[in-house]
């Protein structure tokens, strides 16, 4: 399964938010811990709604949680 072209900084943001656990973040975002694990690993791209919810939890703009590199988004590269 191809990795997501959208990179995320959730792990860093969790630790900067008082070492928040994956379970704490999952509870606040109303998803399972496995979903947070999958997003952190880059094996699942969240919906826009969940992405904004995560950014809201970290009190940071969306682009600081998720980044997109257009150079990686080339047909045939994934």
């Amino acid at each position, binding site marked *: *399964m191809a990795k997501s072209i959208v990179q995320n900084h959730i792990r860093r943001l969790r630790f900067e938010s008082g070492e928040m656990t994956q379970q704490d973040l999952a509870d606040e975002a109303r998803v399972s811990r*496995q979903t947070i694990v*999958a997003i952190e690993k880059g*094996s*699942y791209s969240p*919906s826009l709604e969940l992405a904004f919810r995560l950014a809201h939890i970290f009190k940071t703009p969306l682009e600081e949680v998720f980044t997109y590199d257009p150079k990686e988004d080339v047909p045939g590269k994934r």
Partner: protein
Amino acid sequence: MTYQEKQNVVNIFSALVVTPIYAWLVFQRQQHGQFDLREDFRQWGIVFLIYIGISIVARIIIQIIFHIGNAIATQEEKIPSADERDKLVKLKATRNSYYAFTSGFVVSVIGLALGMPVHWIFIAFVIFGMIAEIIDNGSQIYYYRKGV
């Protein structure tokens, strides 16, 4: 293994147990001459309707046993609710099972066109229905492990 993965394994187990046992019982009745499924298509309707009822009851019992066993083993009584990733996994798995069952249907129709007996299409429905269910649950395990 997550709760969802365990539940999919149990569902595969259910499909591999319930359908073959019921098929065997129907086959035995056929062998003893209680009905003739090669000619009596009305009887197929009855066999399928009974199968639906038995299948639902058997799976409910298996699920209850699974939930009790899982709660004892993990000390977690709460059943995790499905989030957006679970729904996407289920959607993709359902698509795969649909492809499997549709392929089976097309193979059956080709078989009919080539002159196979009509009752084979019902047997093919049972077999491809079971395969589709295994593909559904197997796909879910795959997507949970490899990403979706």
